[in-house]
């Protein structure tokens, strides 16, 4: 019982801000007597989440799958291009400015163009997530490939290492901590950009569900979608942070 009490107190101490906002929201809707189309009550949102878990889960699974797949592909691409740029000064001179320019284009502006090119379906959503995840992986891997432990370069030379052995045993492992930073930074935007793409041109997923329910004046469901999306983003960030911590403990 005491254990539960301390846990509850710990929970309150940590999340009193969120609870406060929820209470304020509920109070405000009551006091102003707002229509549920304009502003649903937190309880309505919770009710919709609990009574229709299937529709939330299936759409969340879809968005999450696209985000994860795009994240993996984007990071693989970013890492591969970073390695390519590392091998030659000429290539890095071309690739780094190109990457910078490309990453400066807002995603929202890219979506219509990509949709024309790839079609108004999941392919475009995936492409958006790949583009979003590419850049951090490219930048951080590029930096990581040059962050070698002090003295290790001389060491490998004296030990007569071949360029390939040097790359595999020294350069690539040196980039791992930076790569983990890229993963942590990319995971939440991957989910977010998947949702934005679905919202603008998709035919399924959380983003599409949000747009549809908002258009149908199912404001409680639109809010529910946001709650699920937030939960997924927080989850992705937490997982990536944990993974980063574990790797750093080994690499420091």
């Amino acid at each position, binding site marked *: 019982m005491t254990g539960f009490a301390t846990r509850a107190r710990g929970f309150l101490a940590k999340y009193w801000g969120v609870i406060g906002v929820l209470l304020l929201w509920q109070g405000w809707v009551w006091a102003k007597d707002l229509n549920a189309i304009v502003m649903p009550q937190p309880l309505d949102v919770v009710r919709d989440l609990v009574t229709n878990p299937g529709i939330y889960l299936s759409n969340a699974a879809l968005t999450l799958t696209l985000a994860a797949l795009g994240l993996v592909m984007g990071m693989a691409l970013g890492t591969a291009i970073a390695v390519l740029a590392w091998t030659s000064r000429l290539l890095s001179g071309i690739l780094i400015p190109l990457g910078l320019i490309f990453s400066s284009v807002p995603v929202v502006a890219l979506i219509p163009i990509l949709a024309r090119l790839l079609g108004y379906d999941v392919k475009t959503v995936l492409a958006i997530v790949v583009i979003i995840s590419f850049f951090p992986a490219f930048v951080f891997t590029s930096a990581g490939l040059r962050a070698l432990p002090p003295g290790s370069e001389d060491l490998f030379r004296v030990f007569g290492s071949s360029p390939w052995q040097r790359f595999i045993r020294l350069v690539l492992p040196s980039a791992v901590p930076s790569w983990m930073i890229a993963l942590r930074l990319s995971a939440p935007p991957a989910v977010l950009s998947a949702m934005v793409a679905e919202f603008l041109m998709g035919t399924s997923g959380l983003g599409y569900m949000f747009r549809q329910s908002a258009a149908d004046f199912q404001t409680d469901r639109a809010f529910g979608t946001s709650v699920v999306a937030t939960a997924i983003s927080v989850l992705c960030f937490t997982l990536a942070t944990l993974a980063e911590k574990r790797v750093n403990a080994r*690499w420091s």
Partner: protein
Amino acid sequence: MSPETAINVDHVGMVFTLDDGTELTAVRDVDIKIGKGEFVALLGPSGCGKSTILRLVAALEEASFGRVTIEGQDPAELSRAHRLGVAFQDHALLPWLTVKDNVALPYKVAGKKVDTTRVKELLELVGLGKFAGARPSQLSGGMRQRVSIARALVLRPDVLLLDEPFGALDAVTRRHMNVELQRIWAEDEVTTLLVTHSVEEALFLADRVLVMTGRPGTVAMEMKIPFARPRDPSIQRTPEFHAMADKLTLALEPEA
């Protein structure tokens, strides 16, 4: 000197071109012959070019004048054949590998099968048998240097190069490490070039001490160290040791 010359630094000069185009002579006309199985200490203050000499022997630099050969060959050839062992002041251990894997690294770099018995023996020899599975970050500074020395010796190199291996350690640990190094070295009496700025370290470990001074650096003095091996730490308290230390100190700072 032993009859057979292992390392021959033959009238070597080294000129670096700085970023602004000016030329800087680091060492001038350095002539050093090291016999097979001999332990030579290169003693000098910071910036006298002693590390440059070591880097030339390690095939990390090319001499501007003169020539460095090891057993008649270019140092780069020995490095390609994985016959050089080296330990630097910054231990250069790879943080993501365990102690055991760090010591085994030269095998992997050379594309050879890891001799686990040899790795184990060396870890026992440097007193870290129980730490085989630890990571470098879990070790003290002295322990890391022991790993680094074990790694330098693992392939049974023809030449061992030590660049201030204990330079970052406190005085007490350093003295302790010198005793350890002497014991480790006695196992296999490999030709060794030690670069140091510590008079006591050079005297305690080496068969011969060369003092380098000046800018550009030159060899100012040579001293044979007569103490029989194995050397007990107590020799460092003998009047003979002190007399030689004074002589070397004076050679290091002639103006003082």
